[in-house]
């Protein structure tokens, strides 16, 4: 009797250790990893070819590992200037479009006012309109008004297409806010300005940060709109496009990698900061 008992027990243990899983159990993990691979593969290739010891002008096949492109990162004058342009433009665009788009998102998320419907339609229309159309029509506008194309027109164009993205992310955050939070601040003696600074602003900060990251990312690698309105100014994407016919130097991969690492660090920081806040 005891033997049969222990046998039964061990059989039960076996079942416990190795539960028989239906094949359907694996669908979701396999699918998830496949999508992740699909998303990450181009980035891996970019990083890898930054270490490629190229012999000729073309960086197409992997010919050996080297760090020399990291050492000679700024050896191509035009490329460095283009990168500096792109970074300064992205920073200015982020700041300005967060200020304008944030206020827009706050108004759309919190208040009811005349013209709210048309305004949110315009915001969405701006996101939905093909960039090619925006770029060419902006060019016509600048030509008509006789505004010289260059750094400033790039800024104007980028700010214009970044505002809606900030507005939408901030609006979503504001709409989720309990309206009594602001009333509670007023009730406790805060003026509307203080209530905004101490309560509303910290609460919608995640939306603002998301909008800022989007703006930075959209601006730094924008090609279509920029190409129509850049004049003599060269940005990083414009330089790469221009160089592609002659062969793209490996420094481009290195710079791409560094921009990617910077973005990754920012994203990681915002996740960690968010966790620390909750704890």
């Amino acid at each position, binding site marked *: 009797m005891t033997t049969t008992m222990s046998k039964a027990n061990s059989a039960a243990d076996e079942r416990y250790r190795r539960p028989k899983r239906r094949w359907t159990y694996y669908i979701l993990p396999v699918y998830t990893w496949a999508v992740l691979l699909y998303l990450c593969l181009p980035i891996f290739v970019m990083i890898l070819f930054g270490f490629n010891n190229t012999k000729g002008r073309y960086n197409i096949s992997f010919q050996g590992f080297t760090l020399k492109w990291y050492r000679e990162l700024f050896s191509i004058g035009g490329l460095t200037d283009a990168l500096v342009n792109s970074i300064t433009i992205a920073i200015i665009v982020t700041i300005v479009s967060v200020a304008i788009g944030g206020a827009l998102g706050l108004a759309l998320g919190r208040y009811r006012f005349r013209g709210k419907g048309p305004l949110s339609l315009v915001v969405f229309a701006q996101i939905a309109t093909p960039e090619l159309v925006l770029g060419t029509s902006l060019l016509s506008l600048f030509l008509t008004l006789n505004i010289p194309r260059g750094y400033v027109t790039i800024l104007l164009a980028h700010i214009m297409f970044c505002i809606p993205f900030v507005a939408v992310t901030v609006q979503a955050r504001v709409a989720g806010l*309990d309206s*009594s*939070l602001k*009333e*509670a*601040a*007023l*009730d*406790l*003696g*805060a*003026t509307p300005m*203080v209530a905004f600074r*101490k*309560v509303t602003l*910290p*609460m919608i900060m995640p939306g603002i940060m998301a909008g800022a990251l989007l703006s930075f990312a959209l601006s730094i690698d924008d090609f279509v709109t920029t190409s129509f309105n850049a004049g003599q100014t060269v940005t990083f994407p414009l330089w790469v496009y221009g160089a592609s016919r002659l062969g793209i130097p490996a420094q481009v991969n290195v710079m791409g990698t560094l921009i990617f690492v910077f973005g990754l660090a920012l994203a990681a920081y915002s996740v960690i900061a968010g966790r620390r*806040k*909750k704890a």
Partner: protein
Amino acid sequence: MTSQTEQERREAGQGVAAAAIDLRGVEKTFYSKAETFSAVRSLDLAIQDGEFFSLLGPSGCGKTTTLRMIAGFEEPTAGEILLHGQNMVGVPPYKRDVNTVFQSYALFPHMTVAENVSFGLERKRVDKQEIRQRVGEMLEIVGLGERGDRRPQQLSGGQQQRVALARALVNRPRALLLDEPLAALDLKLRQAMQVELKRIQREVGITFVFVTHDQGEALTMSDRLVVMNGGLLEQVGTPHELYERPATRFVAGFLGTSNIMEGKVTGVDRGIAVIDAGADGRVLVPTDRSAVGDRIAVSVRPEKIVLSRDEPAADDERCAVTGTVAEMVYLGTSNTYEVRLNGGEMLTVLEQNHSTSESTAQRGDTVWLTWRPQHSLQLVDEPAAATEGGAADDAG
């Protein structure tokens, strides 16, 4: 503070001219594209200093709108709101010496409990040392002395409720406004918080204005309360006055179970009217305004009625009606009977279980219901008339 001093304060308060909160002819109408909605219509109300005052009524009766007008979140369409004699119309909420406990608590999720509680004092530029001391004391009072560095979302519903209370009370406002603060809590916690709120109110001694749709809550906690319906005041008074002497059909029905009978007055003798309700038997009601031939409504509380299988003697002075038990529910400490009178009315009777023997009657039994004439209450149907009628006068 003992209940006696509270009683004295209340009585003293009734004589003083300037109430803590005085609403005079307050109206609030909301206009939208489709319609206009009268949330509050011509409300007159005087809340005394140090009083626990409740605004009671079903949803949409205007109680929350009234509270929001006192806090300053809504401006009245007409009328005046006076806080300690000062007209508050046009004064923004951050300049009013009242604080609110919100139904959703509205705790700032990005701040710790202590930061939440000190928010109001920081706005008033109170000395840092004093802020720390007062916040610490207030968290002790609400039983959260150890939780100052937590985030609100790490606390239970009941604890969040206490933080909201502490955040308002630490400012030592002239009045505390509470908008259904216990609605989100489960029954046990709600009952515990009712006792707790009463204790805190006695301890700090400031005026509490409490909005609720829960009649039990309003009766157990309030010094006085107002019952509102459809934007109008139905009746003001102490819980005892409103329960024992409801002026209107609405108040009688909203505060506890009420048996309402209607009938024509067939005779009036020394202020006692006889009405022809209940078919067999007699229904008597004290009256000061009805004459023979008037149709009146009478209310009797279920616990005032005595149920018996024996017909009362003919010279019995009490009201007596007869009917058949339609339903009997055993509730442990008591039995509830639904009795259908021969005239068709349904009466609810509550009988205490004094003995361990079987209940007095079963379903289908013919029974007699008796009660003393002074437990019959004549009701006024129109709330507008109630403000002029007798019952509202002795409420103030």
